[in-house]
């Protein structure tokens, strides 16, 4: 698996930070004391992955980008590969425009993540984890607890959390994305933040 990924990611031979990224780099680097620039490897990789999304529509990290980060931070490339392969948020092969990250950990599962998964499968045609739909729009990944269990189940699309999902809500969301709309993130039930789903139970002004 790793081998295949490595091969694919080798295909992109060139990577250079573009103007927008360059503008962000000094702010990242100054967060770390002189001589400890290697600490910036995570934000730099993230920056590179975001640039890939911006410029190619697919948020992933080719080896060339990892090498560029290594060069910038004056660290051996292998130290960057170690980090990039450790964190699952870094994609080491091209992914779809929308990265569907379905949480299937216990709370989400109890609250119906199976339906979310089934809906994703149905409307994208993706069969298994890690696959990308034929139209190149969606990649579906299984993720562990996203830390938002109180609004379970969660479907994270790129950076945003769509909460309180179920089958139909998922299908609607994907349809909208396919048409180029990006619905607002947050609860599908329309609740405010993580407030109780059936209305407030405190601060009702009646002394409770």
């Amino acid at each position, binding site marked *: 698996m*790793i*081998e295949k990924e490595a091969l694919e990611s080798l295909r992109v031979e060139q990577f250079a930070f573009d103007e927008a990224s360059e503008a962000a780099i000094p702010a990242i680097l100054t967060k770390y004391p002189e001589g400890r620039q290697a600490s910036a490897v995570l934000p730099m990789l993230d920056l590179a992955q975001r640039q890939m999304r911006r410029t190619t529509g697919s948020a992933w990290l080719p*080896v060339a980008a990892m090498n560029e980060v290594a060069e910038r931070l004056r660290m*051996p*490339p*292998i130290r960057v590969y170690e980090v990039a*392969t450790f964190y699952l948020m870094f994609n080491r092969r091209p992914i779809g425009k929308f990265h569907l990250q379905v949480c299937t950990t216990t709370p989400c599962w109890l609250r119906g993540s199976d339906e979310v998964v089934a809906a994703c499968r149905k409307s994208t045609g993706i069969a298994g984890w890690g696959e990308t739909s034929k139209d190149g729009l969606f990649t579906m990944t299984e993720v562990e607890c996203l830390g938002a269990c109180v609004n379970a189940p969660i479907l994270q699309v790129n950076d945003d959390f769509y909460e309180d999902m179920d089958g139909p809500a998922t299908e609607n969301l994907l349809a909208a994305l396919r048409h180029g709309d990006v619905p607002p993130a947050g609860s599908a039930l329309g609740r405010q933040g993580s407030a109780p789903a059936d209305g407030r139970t405190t601060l009702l002004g009646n002394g409770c």
Partner: protein
Amino acid sequence: MVKLSVDGIEIEVPNGTSVLQAAELAGKEIPRFCYHERLSVAGNCRMCLVEVDKVPKPVASCAWPVANGMVVKTDSPMVRNGRRGVMEFLLINHPLDCPICDQGGECDLQDESMGYGWDRSRFREPKRAVREKDFGPLVKTVMTRCIHCTRCIRFLAEVAGVPQLGATGRGEDMEIDTHIKLALSSELSGNIIDLCPVGALTSKPYAFIARSWELARVDSIDVLDAVGTNISVDSRGPEVLRVLPRINDEVNEEWLADKSRFAIDGLKHRRLDRPWIRRNSKLVPASWDDAFHVIAARLKGLSGEKIGAIAGDLADAESMLALKDLMTALGSRNLDCRQDGARLDASRRDFYLLNTTIAGIEQADAVLILGADPRREAPVLNARIRKRWVAGNFPVGLIGPAVDLTYHAELLGDGPASLARLLAGEHPFAAKLRAAKRPMLILGEAALARADGAAVLAAAWRLAAEFGMLRPDWHGFNVLHTAAARVGALDLGFVPGAGAKDFSAMRAGAVDLLWLLGADEFDAARIPPAVFVVYQGHHGDRGAARADVILPGAAYTEKHGTYVNTEGRAQRGRLAVYPPGEAREDWRILRAFSAVVGHSLPYDDLESLRRRLAAVHPAFARIGSLGAPGCADPTGPAGDPAAVLPTPFSYPIANYYQTDPISRASPTMARCTETFSPRLAQAAE
């Protein structure tokens, strides 16, 4: 100092010692996989668990510092249980393939499982399997066996300075890999085979060749560079199967360079196993008698002036002395050992030694490297420089073409002219050198193999004098040799006597009979046809190709020989296997021939020859150790420091893997050349 007790034994150890080290000092052995005294502490295998009073859980002793009054138990029920648990976890994903594993019989995991393993498994789930990696022609992987101790990663990053391995992925998907399919390009990569506590990394050329208990082991000395690495030679029957490093903290610590480890398959190829005589421009097999008589006939009537001898890079001191004595008996003083024409000055020993000593590098606080590429000329010594550099506050300056030495070297220029600039204080590095208390310089032998070699030597010496490197308590002047034989030859005086012919004169045809003792490092084909060439050596290389008579000698693994390393340390190599066919130990060949020409050399056995060696130079009397340190006399070598030429320095080794007759005959080294210097490999075809 800290006082503690280990299993009831009271000991005192320095602050900062780990419990594991303290236990060792108390004579208690602690099992370990990830800990290695020459690498940083990783603390990830947990095999070294011990019980420390007042600490509720077992602690990893390698990563636990001692404290006053600590009470350590290394063999309590808690400890044993803990280690058993660790062992069970380690074995969960470890395949049960010891019968087909090359590490079998010398495997730490196997050994420890005898003490802490269980003969059953409670693990019912599928075991993980890891894809093999291709780390190049030397290191074979069976990555499913890996226990993730990270020794290999740490060695390459810390000691070798070529950080190519890492732990990619996470959790069950963690793998030791380069991630981008690199062949490990460190000249020290073979050491990770020794370090790997299991059979995950093994020797590719040695794969499935032998079991450790079938091998006969002989302690010896490596000759493929001038470091004098202490090795053990493992053989079975007539074959040398493996070379491993032996620990010698003064020389190689416990490392061995890849060429020295892997070129040994060259000992089986292109061997000269019988005498040959050239008849009608064709070499034909001959008997020893015939060969001797052809040479004797050619010698008849030749005056000593018309006879010469050149000693090669791998020659042992015994045979060089025998050859010198033979030449003296024949009336010749035309001797040379400097096949590269280096203007080494043999008049005083510290003009040609690495005086600081290899271990002494760790005491230095600045180094200037002149026309040397220690990474390829002496990888193990380079690791010592790097070790010092890693420790910090160690400016490194380099004069010569830019080259990656595995540590940062400030480039100060590419030729000897930069010496003058440094002397004049025109470069900021001069200030660093001046500020240093124990500065040293390393002069490459190749920097002397130029028309202005004598001037370079004098200029380097003067620089050493100017920068306070030549003091009674510190000798910072160093010559880095590339040939194992060279220092011994210089000690013996295997150089032209006054007015006699040197290497270039002899090569150009100034003698009528030229005796090459394993001299292959120059273009022998250019020796004029009129010169009668005797080649005594073990490989059919350049020298043999030009020879009129070939006398088959012994390679370093096939004879008892003394070699003096670049520091001036005489060490003894030992016979591991017998020379092939009719080949003989070299000094015996010379002794036998001397009788044929009526000048019998005055030694009949090795002991008397070695007594003579010790009489010729005291270095040969103190095997394994060095002479007095420091510089007693700062007077420099003859030569005009101002006469240096503007030509840039160049490095002698273009392809690390093929530098001598043995490595040129080695299929493994040929594969390395293909992998790491594809251009050179093509050019050679």
